[in-house]
């Protein structure tokens, strides 16, 4: 009982402290009163401790299965193991909002500690902004979806966790995505700090460079993990369906990517200040909007939404945040003038600006497609869905332009690129791209978009290899290093630039996988008797047997299929059909044989008593490239994130 009470009252006390903290910080900053600012800062630290305590309470209650708490009874049961009981913390509405808040408070605490002696003009506003975000979630957690509500008659057993969420991918995916989502609040808070205090130099950007990178990285990895989970768990053979929940995670990442690029222009050339401020405000708004989208159920029905105070709270907060942020920006417009003008189309600035426009364009298309059903139902009373064809039709051409820019952008010089520089930089990568296209054409690739994607990815790889080659050969000549050493030193001395190239390389690999697996997927649905086989894309699947097993949570049937290529047995897959007991729900666990060339993906739909079974088979080419691209993306991001001095060879002692 103590844990329930403590959790409940911690959240209530946090609410009061957060209100006080916001007031003290803003008033202290306006009146230049150090004591008030310190009090506000301490209040924020207090909120951090209280929210951590409340989270610990909820985790404890889940671990001991205290069914008096409604949330516990609703999300775990007697057979659920400790790992999933822990993950039930973010398995439901209340818990996942508490996780959001917890991460925000941890970040606020770290930011306050990092900046005890730095950014003194900005910090009161930064703290106030972070606490305002926390306040919003505290209001929700105290009054709309309280996690510590108790039941008058506690059940003997809980309802259990949704079976689809009982997978390690789903366990780490939400916290991962939230690490990213919530992280964008920090650069946003610094931006508001800069606008409010009038200290509009690049300090707010440089101070939060790592935070932005951190948030962006985890947001990206969260998207990939979501895809990996869908592929492995949902059994429809793909990893991305333009589902509103997926779109919600993609949108902040896209605008965050634009922000990450365009701040470089402000740092180097003092341009695009208004644009950068807008981008981070939009990114922040999209993280709140994404949480709203996934949590309010607005997409499934406007009516469900209209009846919940929850959705309205989000919309009102979003509106208030946008009005205040853009209001501050407009107020500071005269001080946000560009220090330079764009000089040439063929400049780093122009290509980054175009990259920004493309990213924001894709975001807008995704946003429009995602909310169109809601708008249509609200305005015309016609309920529609916007399917993947819309998103693909709009985004694939824009995406191809994005890959081109991903390769071309870094080749342009700042301000303007001379004809000679252009030739020097573009000839080899273009030759590589055209060569790749010719080879693909020879091998019979006729899918225009896929071929273009492959060619452009080859171009990107070409530019990166060329940049590396130039840097390495210069170091080998001048420093007398060996090639591996030179590559390492080159990367470590220019972490931001070469880390960025590695990220670009990862994206190129990823796009090859995406293009191949969406253009050349083979699907076949078939009914097989025991011993019969089915051929698809040069692979033969032979249905060899069926077996059963039971665990405390579910019983399952496995169909065993031998996989043959050119007459040789290359392995087997065992797709599974599960039936969970509580809640009683069937799930499909596909049998996947992963390979560098293609994945063999088998779904076991149903079986008759005589053993005749229905299957869905898929051959998904190059899916592993998507995940490999993700790994390279991760490595590149880590390089960018490493401290400036790390990994360089120390100077030889004289």
């Amino acid at each position, binding site marked *: 009982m103590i844990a329930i009470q403590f959790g409940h009252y911690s959240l209530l006390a946090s609410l009061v402290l957060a209100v006080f903290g916001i007031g003290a910080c803003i008033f202290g900053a306006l009146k230049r009163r150090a004591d008030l600012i310190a009090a506000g800062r301490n209040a924020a630290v207090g909120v951090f401790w209280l929210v951590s305590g409340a989270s610990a309470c909820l985790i404890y209650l889940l671990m001991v299965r205290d069914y008096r708490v409604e949330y516990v009874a*609703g999300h775990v049961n007697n057979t659920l193991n400790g790992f999933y009981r822990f993950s039930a913390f973010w398995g*439901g*509405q209340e818990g996942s909002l508490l996780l959001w808040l917890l991460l925000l408070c941890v970040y606020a605490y770290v930011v306050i500690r990092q900046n005890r002696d730095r950014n003194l003009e900005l910090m009161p506003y930064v703290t106030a902004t972070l606490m305002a975000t926390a306040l919003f979630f505290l209001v929700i957690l105290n009054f709309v979806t309280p996690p510590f509500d108790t039941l008058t008659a506690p059940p003997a057993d809980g*309802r259990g966790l*949704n079976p689809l969420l009982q997978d390690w991918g789903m366990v780490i995916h939400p916290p991962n995505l939230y690490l990213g989502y919530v992280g964008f609040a920090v650069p946003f808070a610094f931006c508001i700090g800069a606008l409010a205090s009038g200290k509009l130099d690049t300090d707010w950007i440089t101070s939060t460079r790592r935070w932005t990178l951190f948030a962006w990285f985890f947001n990206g990895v969260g998207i990939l993990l979501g895809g990996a989970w869908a592929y492995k768990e949902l059994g429809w053979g793909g990893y991305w369906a333009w589902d509103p929940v997926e779109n919600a995670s993609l949108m902040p990442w896209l605008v965050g990517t634009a922000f990450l690029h365009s701040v470089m222009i402000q740092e180097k050339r003092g341009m695009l200040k208004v644009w950068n401020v807008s981008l981070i405000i939009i990114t922040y708004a999209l993280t709140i909007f994404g949480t709203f989208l996934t949590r309010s*159920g607005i997409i*499934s029905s406007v009516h*469900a939404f209209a009846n*919940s105070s929850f959705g309205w709270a989000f919309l009102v907060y979003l509106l208030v945040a946008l009005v205040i942020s853009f209001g501050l920006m407009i107020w500071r417009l005269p001080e946000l003038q560009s220090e330079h*003008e*764009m*000089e040439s*189309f063929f400049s780093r600035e*122009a290509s980054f600006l*175009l990259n920004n*426009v493309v990213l924001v*364009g894709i975001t*807008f*298309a995704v946003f*429009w*497609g995602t909310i*169109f059903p809601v708008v249509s139902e609200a305005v015309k009373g*016609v*309920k*529609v*869905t*916007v*399917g993947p*064809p*819309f*998103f693909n*039709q*709009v985004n694939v*051409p*824009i995406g191809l332009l994005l890959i081109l820019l991903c390769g071309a952008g870094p080749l342009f010089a700042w301000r303007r690129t001379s004809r000679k520089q252009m030739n020097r930089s573009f000839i080899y990568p273009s030759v590589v791209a055209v060569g790749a296209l010719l080879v693909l054409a020879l091998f019979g690739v006729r899918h225009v978009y896929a071929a273009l994607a492959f060619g452009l990815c080859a171009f990107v790889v070409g530019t990166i290899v060329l940049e590396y080659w130039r840097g390495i050969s210069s170091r080998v000549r001048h420093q007398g290093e060996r090639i591996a050493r030179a590559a390492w030193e080159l990367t470590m001395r220019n972490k931001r630039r070469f880390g960025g190239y590695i990220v670009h390389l990862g994206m190129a690999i990823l796009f090859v996988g995406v293009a191949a697996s969406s253009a050349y997927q083979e699907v076949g*649905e*078939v*009914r097989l008797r025991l011993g019969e086989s089915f051929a698809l894309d040069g692979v033969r699947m032979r249905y060899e047997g*069926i077996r*059963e097993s039971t665990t405390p949570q579910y*019983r399952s*049937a496995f169909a065993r299929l031998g996989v043959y290529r050119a007459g040789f047995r290359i392995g087997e897959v065992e797709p599974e059909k599960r*039936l969970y*007991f509580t*809640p*009683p*729900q*069937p799930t*499909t666990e596909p049998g996947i044989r992963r390979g560098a060339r293609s994945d063999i993906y088998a*779904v076991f*739909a*149903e079986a*008759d*008593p005589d*053993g*005749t079974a*229905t*299957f*869905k088979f898929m051959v998904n080419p190059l899916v592993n490239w998507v995940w490999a691209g993700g790994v390279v993306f991760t490595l590149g991001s880590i390089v960018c994130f490493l401290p400036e001095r790390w990994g360089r060879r120390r100077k030889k002692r004289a």
Partner: protein
Amino acid sequence: MSVQKIKFLIAGAVILSGFAYLGISGFQSENLVYFLTVDEVSQKAPTLGGRGIRVQGKIVPKTLQKNPDAMQLAFHIQGEKGTLPVSYKGVPPDLLENGFPVIAEGKLDAKGVLVAKNLMVACPSKFEEMKDAGESMPTDHEAMMKEAVKRKQMSEAR
């Protein structure tokens, strides 16, 4: 305004109109799927040719015909006034039985049959949503449990 600025504005306008074109052309009717009730479908049938529609309703008892070897299904969905015939070819969804609520997505053919490309059982598994809607355990739950038992017996018999 400098010449340079004008150039950039023109380039920006060209790019944005390209995006706008893509965005607007993406909203062709074949990329949209309309949610309709069974009765709306029968009212508007003549105007729905070629449009994607999505209909939800319960399977009319005893209309479900399965042809497992051809992997084909046919049934009627119950509306308030009439019913709508649906046909489907492919791997059937889990727990498809007479009386179950289903969601069928596809196009009407010339005879007024909804040829479903996607077929889902409106699965009563989303406890949270039901809790929010103030519903108790659905009656379908019993059917699901029966199905579970049936499968169990089936597998034990083997």
